[in-house]
């Protein structure tokens, strides 16, 4: 059985990858275990936003470094 993307482990891995500032990261990791499914989906939505932002940042910086 594949592990759900809403599992603690998936979230922990994702949160740690997203360059979130340490204080906020600690808060999210602390709260994670207390969240139910609906709250996890809300968290996922927010993390996806951050992920997209990071993607955008990486793409922009790569473009800027390569000067187009």
């Amino acid at each position: 059985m594949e592990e759900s993307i809403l599992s603690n482990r998936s979230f922990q891995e994702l949160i740690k990858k997203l360059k979130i500032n340490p204080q906020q990261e600690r808060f999210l990791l602390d709260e994670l275990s207390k969240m139910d499914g609906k709250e996890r989906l809300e968290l996922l939505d927010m993390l996806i936003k951050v992920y997209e932002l990071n993607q955008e940042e990486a793409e922009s910086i790569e473009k800027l470094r390569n000067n187009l």
Partner: protein
Amino acid sequence: MVKLKKQKTMEGIPDQNEPTINLGTQEQQLALPPYDFDAAKKQIRESEERLKDLEGKKGKTNKEKKEEKNIRKALIGMNKLHEEKLKTAGKTSQLDQELGDEPDWTEPHPTWDENLPEDEREIKIISPAESQDKPDKIEVPKKLEKEKDKELEERRAAMEALHAPDVRKAEAETQAKINRVEVSQEHRTFIENFLSEDIKALQEEFAVKWFDDHKGELKEIQVEEAQREFKVKFVMKHWEDRKMESEMREVGDGKEQGYNEQFGDKIDNLLTLRHELTRESGVSAASPFLLLGYLMKRIDNGMPEIESENLYKAIKDLAGKTMAENIDKDAERKVDENISAKYINKEKYVEKELVGRKKEVEERENEKLIEEEWQKFQKLPNDEERNEFLIHLGAKPGQIDKQQFKERLYVSTNTAFGTNLEVKDFYALMKDGYKPYEAAITGYRSFWGIPEGVFERVKIKKGEEVEKMSARAFDELVEKLRKAREESFETQAKKELSEDWDKARNSAIRIRAKNRVRQIAELGPERVEKLTTELRDRIVQEYIEKHPKKEPESPAKEALPPPLDEKLVEPKKSVRVTKFEKVMAGKLIDDIYLARRGEGKGTGELAGLTGNIERDADILSNYFKKNFAVRSMTPKKILELVVGDSRRVYEEACRSNDNIDLISWFAKMNEKKPWKKNKI
């Protein structure tokens, strides 16, 4: 403590005779005292607590096990009754539960002035003694009801917003955007035109290359003799009314990649830059820096000076406005600071350099006078006249160079005046039109008892005229001319030194400004990183503020409104591989593809769809990236989803968090099922 032994638990419903919870017939109920909501709630809460204790207890006795079973059953009944009573009383049970119990009227409580319009009523806190209202008469005040509704509405709206079907909204929220590329309208137009020219040049270059690469296929025309202009026109006409940049990706025999790298990608980038430049809002924070980088590169690669200067002005404006700086003013201030740190200013500089510069001016002016004489000599009508002039100067007729000519002028002057005339006087006379080399002194220079120069006469040519004067008058003339000339040297030297100072200062300012512009152009990654960090912090912070820290004993979920979608409450059921059959991602793409391919031709982002999925995958991929924020929906994945094993793509995405955007897209599609609602 609830006396459960007294309760009958027929189908989990408490005994009718139980004084606090009565579940008789309607008639019986009407005869009984009113249902006590508080007491019922209290009993339910106590029962729940007891049940919790029993559930958590290890090594339960049979008696306790039985008690646990009974309480569970009783609770079902009590809750059911309570719900019914709430309905009967016309109360919104969920709302009441959510906002808490009814007010305790034995405590200080809110009241309001009924005579005022609803909007103007102020709620006051009064003690029970002050209150004239009877608790049983008091209903939930309208204002509080409104607040409840408003709060509920807000919560609902927030929940709906979190799961909005428009994925683009999420993208717009997260991208590091600025309002627009800041630059004056004049420079915006200039840069726009500049980019358009570059795009046109690349398109033409592509057209020529394509023409040359396809000579073999163009048999009907004289390809060998075709000129550049013809090639461009031919290729452009070939794709009349179609976009060159998209065509580039379609043509050629295995040459597409080359065309893309050489032209297509570059044109795409320029089109994006131009588009971002002209957009009025929602511009990527990286755009001004990308634009600066490109324009700086164009200047560095060389271009005509005037064009380069104009472009530089536009770049400087763009750089300054991007960083909200006045680049010239800042550079000027910095240069002046540096100058003053060296304890020097313009006046001191002029004073210090004046003597040397006066000398330079004098020498330059002298040379100029000699040059003029030399030119006049050169322009004499023939050799005979030139020889005659040379003989007059005491020189041998024939060839003479400028240096020898100058020496002859000196010698001739010296012959006339001896040591009485200084070199500077020689030039002062020449400057005023005299010809000291064509002069003579007659008479006595001095006589007994008579002042020097009175009987001495000077004959000197001025232009073509000969002037005669006493030696004294001549001396006075020379002195006057010398003085005037020296003054003119000083004025000229001061003017030049002042100009040199300004020039050096302006040059230092210009260099500093140029360096700053270059610096700004390179600040892109740093600025984007900074902006993104701020935005990331804000997104997370907003989430945290909406989801305050939970205390273990009072879980926050109790305060949440009832779930809008029951399915979402259950963890692990929302998005799982086992639910993939419902995702139907491949079907969704196929539907979009089928639906759009007919109507979209010639318009919109799907204009280029041909019906061949292998060729259209690229367009679909871009469409998904732009419209659904799914960056990892590559052409390869599109093909796999539509014609390959779409389940495998999803499973693969689930295994790696790197594909989180793809998973999230699947999750959202699963939740919203837009293919059913025809939302896309």
